[in-house]
């Protein structure tokens, strides 16, 4: 009988070059998928929707006493007896740091899932890069790419990821040199317990806003295993044998849900937002939610458990 889950990247133990090639081969697909998903999200979204410093016209508003006369739009004001000021849309550039978990545990896909967790994480990250680049934000990836403002930010991020030596990347993002006005989006399966303590908590203390996206496989949540089963951790190689796996399923699900609830609570407690996405669900769900969080117009929170 075929096992329920598998480790998708067979080059896991192979040398760095082969892994980099496999990763680079995965990236164009992820990039294309990210573009597609980003298009579904970005439709109907118009910029910042705030007045501020920018180039595009936003509105005429009556001149208020005390404002600089140089800001009066005389052409408009000449039409009637009031004075008008031309407001422009706010176009302040913003840096968003994106990070996808590169750990081996991400390379897992059960037969219930559409894609592997790694693929989903990359898609979410690149899609966010695409969305943010199109709206003029600066995007960056800790340890991989410095902040860059470009229309093709997603491609450049993909290129940087393709060239990055993934094995030398730290298991947790280095958020120490990020300044405090930046946003951070972490995409991970959150199975590393130190992620919260070593990474998120210090960053939150420094006032960095952030979003944690948990990618999980449905098999990890529902635990569909039955019978005598030997479980192996892809990261450490440790094994664990369950005589009749279905007997521990309920306990496991409870523990899984408790752990996630605790994680979500502590993340929200530190001022970050927490989103979860199962790999058997479309990536656009979490992307829409994430985009809502970023742009300050929260969408429905049904998918954000």
């Amino acid at each position: 009988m075929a096992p329920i889950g598998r480790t998708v990247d067979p080059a896991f133990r192979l040398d760095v070059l082969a892994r980099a090639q496999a990763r680079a081969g995965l990236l164009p697909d992820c990039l294309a998928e990210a573009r597609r998903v980003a298009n579904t999200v970005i439709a109907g979204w118009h910029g910042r929707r705030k007045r501020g410093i920018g180039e595009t016209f936003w509105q005429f508003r009556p001149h208020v006493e005390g404002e600089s006369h140089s800001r009066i739009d005389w052409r408009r004001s000449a039409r009637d007896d009031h004075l008008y000021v031309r407001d422009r849309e706010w176009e302040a550039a913003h840096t968003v740091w994106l990070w996808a978990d590169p750990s081996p545990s991400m390379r897992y896909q059960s037969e219930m899932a559409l894609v592997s967790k790694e693929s989903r994480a990359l898609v979410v990250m690149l899609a966010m890069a695409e969305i943010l680049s199109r709206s003029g934000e600066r995007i960056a990836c800790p340890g991989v790419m410095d902040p860059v403002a470009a229309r093709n930010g997603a491609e450049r991020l993909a290129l940087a990821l393709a060239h990055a030596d993934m094995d030398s990347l730290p298991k947790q993002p280095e958020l120490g040199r990020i300044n405090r006005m930046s946003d951070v989006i972490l995409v991970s399966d959150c199975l590393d317990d130190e992620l919260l303590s070593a990474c998120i908590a210090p960053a939150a203390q420094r006032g960095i806003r952030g979003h944690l996206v948990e990618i999980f496989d449905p098999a990890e949540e529902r635990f569909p295993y039955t019978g005598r089963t030997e479980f192996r951790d892809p990261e450490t190689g440790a094994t664990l044998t369950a005589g009749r796996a279905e007997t521990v399923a309920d306990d496991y699900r409870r523990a899984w849900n408790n752990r996630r609830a605790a994680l979500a609570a502590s993340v929200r407690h530190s001022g970050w937002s927490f989103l979860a996405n199962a790999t058997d669900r479309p990536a656009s769900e979490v992307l829409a939610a994430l985009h809502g969080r970023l742009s300050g117009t929260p969408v429905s929170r049904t998918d954000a458990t």
Partner: protein
Amino acid sequence: MSALPLAFGAPLLLFGLLALPVIWWLLRMTPPRPQREAFAPLPILARVLKADHTPAHSPWWLTALRLLVAALIIFALAEPILNPRSQTLSRTGPLVLMIDNGWAAAPDWSERVESAEALLAEAREAELPVLIAFTAERRHEPTPTTAEAALEQLRAAEPRSWQPARASAVDAIITALADTAPGTIAILSDGVAEGQSAAADEQTTAPDDDAAAFERLFALGASDIQIFARTGSAPVALTAASNAANGFEVTAARLPEAGARDITLIARDNRGRDVARGALTFAAGEMTASGRLDAPFELRNDIARLEVVAARTAAGVRLIDDSARRRRVALISGAPADQSQPLLAPLYYIDNALSPFAELRRADSADLAIAVPKLLATNPNVIIMADIGVPQTIGAPSELSPSASADTSAWPAALSEWVRRGGTLIRFAGPRLAAASGDDPLIPVRLRRGERELGGALSWDEPQPLAAYPTAGPFSGLPTPGNVTVKRQVLAEPSADLAARTWASLADGTPLVTAAPRGDGRIVLFHVTAEAGWSNLPISGHFVEMLRRIVQLSNVSRATIEAQDASASTSSDSAAGQALLPPWRLLDASGRLVPANGDARPLDLSAARPQPGPDSPPGLYGNEDGHVALNLFAPGESLRSLVIPAPAAPLTRLPIGSSETIPLTPWLFAAALFGLIADTLIVLILAGGLSRLRSRAGLLQRSRVALALLAALAVSLVPALQPASAQQNAGAPAAASDARAGDAHILEQLDTTHLAYVLTGDDTVDATSRAGLDGLSTYLANRTALEPGAAVGVDIERDELAFYPLIYWPMSEQAPFPTEAAISRIDAYMRSGGSVLFDTRDRIDSLGAGTTGPTRRLQIILSGLDIPALEPVPSDHVLTKAFYLLDTFPGRYADGPLWVEAIGEGGPDGDRPARGGDGVSSILITGNDLAAAWAQDAAGNPLFATVPNDPWQREYAYRAGVNIVMYMLTGNYKADQVHIPALLERLGQ
């Protein structure tokens, strides 16, 4: 071993049971292999997963099941046998095995071989010499050998399709044994006595033969005698079958038996198709049964074999020879063949009646002395003579052949001989026959001289209808012809057997068709002529039916084959003395026809019917064209039981085949297999495989299963599909290869309608024609639904004309004259529905002078064509209404008439070939130079001025062209349209 009826073929293997404890230990030590899964959130799982509570050992009952399976396999390998055969062979001397392998042993031959093998196996164990003899073999050469050699002989033997010869087999056994006393004599008898007798009390030698042979055998002093005999009912033999008037009559024989028995018969044609079925019933205690297979007359002639359904033996098959052959009919007429008045020729009706189902040969000479031997040489089955008087005595000059040579008189003798050998002679009356003397040797009944006339001017009688056919004759079953009347006939002299020889008679009882057998053949006389002069019988359908039945009754086998054989063999003595037929298809013991092998000898027809045996097995003798069937049983023969006299030695009677030893090995293996399956299921359930299967019964899983099934199906279908695809592959190049060089051009011509003109060779005229037709095409495209392509110039010498509805042919004096072939092509084009518009372009010229050059040229061309009468377009012609309403057809010149085929008052005449094709006139002639009026340059400006120069005349010229094209394309459709008011008025009623 003695208490249980159980023996082991390989008892040493039972030591394998000692290994069971080891297997038990191994089974206990091995837990089921876990399913390996990658699982990232292992720490979470580790928290909830407590101590591993999987049992280290399988449950005890699972281990017990596996041990049971292992034990079963070991037992099965030890070949246990339930109820082993008791040792019955006497050890005092060699085993004598006498096996009947005649036809009656065929149905249960395999059981017989089993019984013999069992005996041989025992003899092998006891190391007894064996003497094996098969009673139906050609030569009996038994020698004492080992059991192994005897087993080989047994395996090589097969049942034969003839009777066993037990006496010679016993003699051979006695010779082979010399003085040795046999230990056990085992006889596997088929229960049927050797030899058949027409009357059992008459021939009593055959059973004596059998009994004496057995007594001789038993006198050898055997210490034990075993007789194996059949327990069920014996096979049935078909002893006779004949194609009677109302059906196929079949007689069957069986051994004396108490109960009643039904057997089913199938009649098949020579391709093995099922023609008819029937049943025979043996009454209780009866040894023979007769019955009839009902089948249509036509199908009965196709029957090639009858067989008993249940038991397939050589005797259960009756071969019918030569019944499916097409008859060859020779026709001889006294009247000279007059082809100009075929309906009066006597052979015309016979020819038409018989040609669908018989091969006809006509006499090619009026001289019968030449014609008859020639026809006889072709081996006809039937000879039909229409109104020929046969000379009364041999040697007398014939009145029919005034120019006859001296040996004229030989042909009636030859004909008579041919009839006696099986030919069927059909004669028709007539003036010549009526005038011949009453001693004609080749008529079935004596005739009165002269003929009887009914309903004539000097007669009181009315023409007579036919009476119903007598039920005994071959015409029985045909409907009574009600509309056939006879005005004249020849009369038969009354005699005692006239009624028996009458096949059909008139309503007043006078015979119309009489017949009499002559030797193996038959003479049939129709008392009327073969043409419709004396009666209307030849022009009625009953004539066909009557001839057909007579022809199908005709005997074909012996006459044909003898004649063939005689003509084939070069030596005269063999032709005269004996006719030998080579074996062609022989019956095997189970009643199948197999190609003849070299053992069978040719069949001598001149001798008495040979007894079927090794030299002449039952089957078909001859060749594909004609053959004689030799069946195992002759009509009247019966079957008798084999009687074996009581011997001095102890006699054991045993049933054949039903050995009660039961080998247990297959059952044990099956049980072990079931145990393994159960073990697999239990392991699956224990490992949670079933619930896993359930939980994963998602779309993916299902699609995988479906995919696997599909793949299996595809693999199994690949061989079946390969021929089809190969066929397709083979067909593809064939389909592709019928493309020819000019196809593209043809398609182009067919895609759109093109107006065509004849390339005369005069460049000016051709250019004008092209410009004119192009101009007309433009006009058509603008004004009508027709959008013709560019005008096409055709070379009438070479180009295919059939694509164009209309060809414009301007006459030019400068052009070379078309050849005869070209004119005949134009003629063919007009016959096949095309139309030619001739334009002499000489209206102006012909005004003054009489005939101009182009007109003369046209006249010469038309003289080569088959042209009907012409007329100027009448005012009610379709041409004046086809699109525009016109009364003139001007071209460059205004007032010239347009000539078309005259529409006859009395409808179309069938002799005009050019009138074919929807009533469209195949020819139009004008002198108005239409093309010049239509011609325009690229800018649309006219090239030629009209005469007189009137713009409206050009417009009318175009309209005339439109009307002509529409007339060509739609035919007389518009002529019908003008009747619409009248039609509507009629419909309104």
